[in-house]
Every structure is written in structure tokens, then in C-alpha cells.
């Protein structure tokens, strides 16, 4: 694996606390000394947050599609009627 990818892997292990205490300490020291590395770590954390947001957005789309099926398709008519009745619709 390329050096830069190896670094990403190590930063990931640091973020998710998958390192041994020694490795983690070493990483902390490196982050203290290397500003560029610290910046890359912060950017990488942002990516994890971004992926989480993206995942939720996509999941909500999937759920909305299921909901649309249940309220729109003829084969689910009894379900829809049952729900509408609850709300006196």
C-alpha cells in the first residue's frame, strides 16, 4: 500500500481507538510535532462525519420509497385504508 494510504490507515486506527496504548502515544507525539499530519487527521474526521450524513440521507430515501409503496400501490390498499381510518381521513 502507498505511504499516504498507510498513513490514512494509521490515522483511522487512531480515530477509532484500534491502536495499542504505545501506538496511540506515538501517534499523539507525531501529531504534536507534525502540523500537516494534524490537519490531515482533522480532515479525515470530517470525512467520517460526512459519510455518516450521506448514509443517513440515503437510508431516509430508501425508507421514503417503502412508505410511498405502502401508501401508493394497489396491493397495499388495505394497509393504507387502515391507517387513514385511524386519522378519520
Amino acid at each position, binding site marked *: 500500500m502507498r505511504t499516504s494510504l498507510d498513513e490514512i490507515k494509521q490515522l483511522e486506527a487512531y480515530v477509532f481507538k484500534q491502536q495499542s496504548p504505545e501506538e496511540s502515544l506515538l501517534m499523539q507525539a507525531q501529531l504534536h510535532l507534525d502540523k500537516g499530519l494534524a490537519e*490531515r487527521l482533522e*480532515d479525515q474526521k*470530517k470525512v*467520517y462525519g460526512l459519510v455518516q450524513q450521506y*448514509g*443517513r440521507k440515503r*437510508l431516509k430515501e430508501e425508507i421514503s420509497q417503502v*412508505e410511498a409503496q405502502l401508501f401508493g400501490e394497489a396491493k397495499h390498499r388495505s394497509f393504507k385504508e*387502515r391507517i387513514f381510518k385511524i*386519522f378519520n381521513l
Partner: protein
Amino acid sequence: MKDQLTSPAGREQFFLRLYQESFPDLAKYIQKRGGTLADAKDVFQDSLVIYYEQLTKEKPIANQKQQAYLFGIARHLWFKRYQQQSRFLNEVDGVGEGLISDQIPQEPAHRDVWQFLEQAGQKCMEMLKAFYYDRLSMEQLAGQFGYQSTRSATVQKYKCLEKVRDQVKQKSLTHEDFIG
């Protein structure tokens, strides 16, 4: 059940079943408390997201408890929603408090973020999502994305991470851009 959640088709079946089993009860519950069908739909959608995230991250919840668990999340979300609307906060008890650590975030305020995602490459985002959000194993990831080995899938995953990270840096996107 976790295996069922690893593919879009499996998730569809899973959510269909949950709607059929649990949505009518929630609808009744919310209707009795003055809520609308739109309220019930919103609350249920958000509950399913939270439930899904719990399932992918933690030990499976026993089958017979699933419905009760999902209903607990929904009831908690409904209370929160009701509290926000109500001026009489003290009348609402704290049932369900502490059940949920995550909050459902609002859609990002900046459309740019989603445009940016498109640029980062749909395949990369899907792959990162499958691993970090849906929590597929490396074997499942390799299978779903057509890699010969877990090793090549792993390398590709880190390449994608690097690609998106470079874009984050370039655009100086901040956390606020994502949470709106």
C-alpha cells in the same frame, strides 16, 4: 437479520415488514395525542433510522423485543416533538429519556455539500457508506463492489477515503456545512 440489512433489497423487505407490523399502533398512539398522519410518518421514519443504526452497530436485539424497542424510540421522538410544540413543558413526563443517544440531524442547509459528494464520485461514497455506515464486513464489501479479494477492497476503501479527504481540504468544508 444483520445479513438482510446489507443489501438495498433486504432493507426494503425489512422496512416493509416494520411498517406493516408497527406503524398502525404508532399511528393510533399519535392520533390519540392530537398528532396528524404527517406527524406519524415523520416520527416513524426517524425512528427507523435510529433503529437501523442501533442494529448495525450493536448486538442484535432479541426478536420478540424488536417491536417494543422500535415503539420506544418512536414514543421518545414523539414526546420530543410534542414538547417543542407545547408551552406546558412540565406536563410531559420524561418517558423514554436517555434511550437514544443520537439525534436525527436536519438535512444540510447547503446544497453544495451534496453537489460536492457527487463530484467525489458516487462509487466511492457508496463504498465508504457501505463500510462505515452500513458496517459491512470486508468480505461483503468486496463481494458487493466486485473486488477479487478483501485486500484489494481494503486498498480501494483507503483510496476513496483519501479522495474525499482531499476534496474536503480543497473546499475547506467545515462540520457546520454538513449539519446545517
